């Protein structure tokens, strides 16, 4: 990567898609629009997102995930053995519907609007997951490029739907072996073609969506024993480190969020990062891209051995944070990190799910501009 300034400004990934592209996405899925025609519209949308990032002063750019339906379900198009199923379809086959119902209700979204890449056969790369995105960006920008990829734990948990996957894989652990293989092949392709930053998305929310927790009540709730997330966290760390093994030369990141579905902050999962700390610090990833601009995430804390991708604007709020607010947030991070360890980014994407973006393009652009403005002032303060 070309030399970056202090406090590099980057996106987490997504940008709201234009209505025309959304329409095209639906038409393509329904077989009413050719891939070439869709690409033509998507190319134009990506160029616009690049232009807006340039204008805002973003240092490491993404393609706004314009080609993707959402940050992980797009994998269904690129992998064999994976079928994109709406949650409405999944409700027909899964045993435990209560967990799904709860989450849909909390998020105020219909089951037909959420699609899950469900494993229905042996998984194999039909085409690279994001190489086409990288190559297009490379042709159209000289800036360093970030490619977000769904993390191995997320993909494994999401794709393994026992009612559909069991004929091929006996367990999610078995499936994870192939997921790791696919992601390692992808990493090799992306590194070879010059990706500057590869970020893995591992939102905690999916864990909740797919854990299928029992909702029956106990005799006396005050003594009810809670589930043990340690086993799952251990699993997630193992998978992530297997993917990263041997790719030490490239800038990597892990992004964790708590749901980025609606502007209603009460739908977010609550709780700070403390329970995750022992696991996150064992990840061989260079940077943790964390949400800190939202109150439920708690105060900035230090993670040993990793840079911080500091979330300092909230992608879900209509109000644009002032540079002063961002500076104050950076100041809190500087209590725990050296200036050279801090990147600035929004808490999450602006359009994680193509059909329910959490903000308009205008607000997103203004927020990125504020980030870049704050970064310039930070550089003046901290440049030796």
């Amino acid at each position, binding site marked *: 990567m070309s030399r970056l300034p202090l406090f590099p400004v980057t996106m987490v990934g997504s940008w709201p898609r234009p*209505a025309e592209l*959304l*329409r095209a996405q*639906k038409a393509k899925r329904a077989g009413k629009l050719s891939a070439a025609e869709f690409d033509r519209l998507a190319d134009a949308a990506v160029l616009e997102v690049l232009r807006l990032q340039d204008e805002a002063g973003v240092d490491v750019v993404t393609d706004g995930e314009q080609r993707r339906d959402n940050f992980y379900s797009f994998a269904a198009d690129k992998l064999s053995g994976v079928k994109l199923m709406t949650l*409405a379809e999944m409700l027909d086959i899964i045993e435990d519907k*209560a967990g799904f119902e709860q989450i*849909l*209700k909390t998020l*105020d*979204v*219909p*089951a*037909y*609007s959420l699609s899950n890449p469900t494993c229905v056969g042996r998984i194999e790369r039909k085409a690279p997951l994001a190489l086409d995105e990288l190559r297009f960006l490379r042709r159209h920008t000289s800036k360093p490029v970030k490619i977000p990829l769904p993390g191995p734990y997320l993909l494994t948990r999401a794709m393994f739907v026992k009612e559909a996957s069991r004929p091929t894989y006996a367990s999610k652990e078995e499936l994870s072996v192939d997921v790791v293989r696919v992601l390692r092949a992808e990493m090799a392709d992306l590194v070879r073609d010059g990706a500057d930053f590869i970020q893995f998305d591992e939102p905690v929310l999916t864990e909740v969506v797919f854990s299928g927790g*029992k*909702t*029956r009540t106990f005799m006396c709730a005050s003594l009810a024993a809670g589930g043990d997330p340690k086993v799952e966290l251990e699993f997630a760390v193992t998978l992530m480190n297997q993917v990263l093994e041997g790719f030490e030369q490239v800038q990597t990141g892990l992004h964790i969020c708590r749901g980025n579905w609606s502007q209603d902050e009460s739908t977010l999962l609550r709780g700070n990062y403390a329970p995750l700390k022992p696991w996150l610090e064992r990840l061989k990833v260079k940077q943790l891209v964390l949400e800190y601009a939202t109150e439920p995430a708690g105060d900035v804390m230090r993670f040993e051995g990793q840079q911080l991708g500091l979330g300092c604007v909230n992608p879900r709020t209509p109000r644009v944070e002032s540079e002063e607010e961002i500076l104050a947030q950076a100041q809190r991070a500087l209590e725990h990190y050296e200036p050279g360890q801090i990147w600035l980014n929004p808490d999450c994407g602006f359009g994680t799910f193509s*059909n*329910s973006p959490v903000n308009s393009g205008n607000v997103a652009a203004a927020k990125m501009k504020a980030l870049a403005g704050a970064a310039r002032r930070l550089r003046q303060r901290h440049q030796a």
Partner: protein
Amino acid sequence: MSDLRFSVRVNSRPDGRCDVRVRKRSFEVGVPLSFDSAYDGVTALEQFLGALGSDLAGGLLARARKRRIEIDAIEATVEAALNNPLAYLDVVGEQGTTAIEQISARVYISSFASEADIQMLWAEMLERSPLVNTLRPAVKLDLSFKVAL
């Protein structure tokens, strides 16, 4: 009172469930009410909510067809607030009767039609819905829709 009547026939089964027969079709209904999230039947109360949700979704679709407005999908969630559930369980010391006080329905519509068109369909559907108009005087109805692609 109208002469137009609709009827179904219900037969109990040894397992505590019922078979409902109507014309050439029949469907199964479970116990009246269950608090067990693992109960594997559909309770009478849930059937009732399902009927209301179907009335809303089907009603909207019928209006849309009539108006030639394209709708890709409709999804309705219906939720009832049940008063005095413990009285149903014979809990000593509980008072009141077990009854639904409020029903909320949220209807999601996937369509690129204009907001004004959708609003019109919604109003027309509500005006004509037999279940909505029957329930309105009896329970608090909170009905809303959202366009979600």
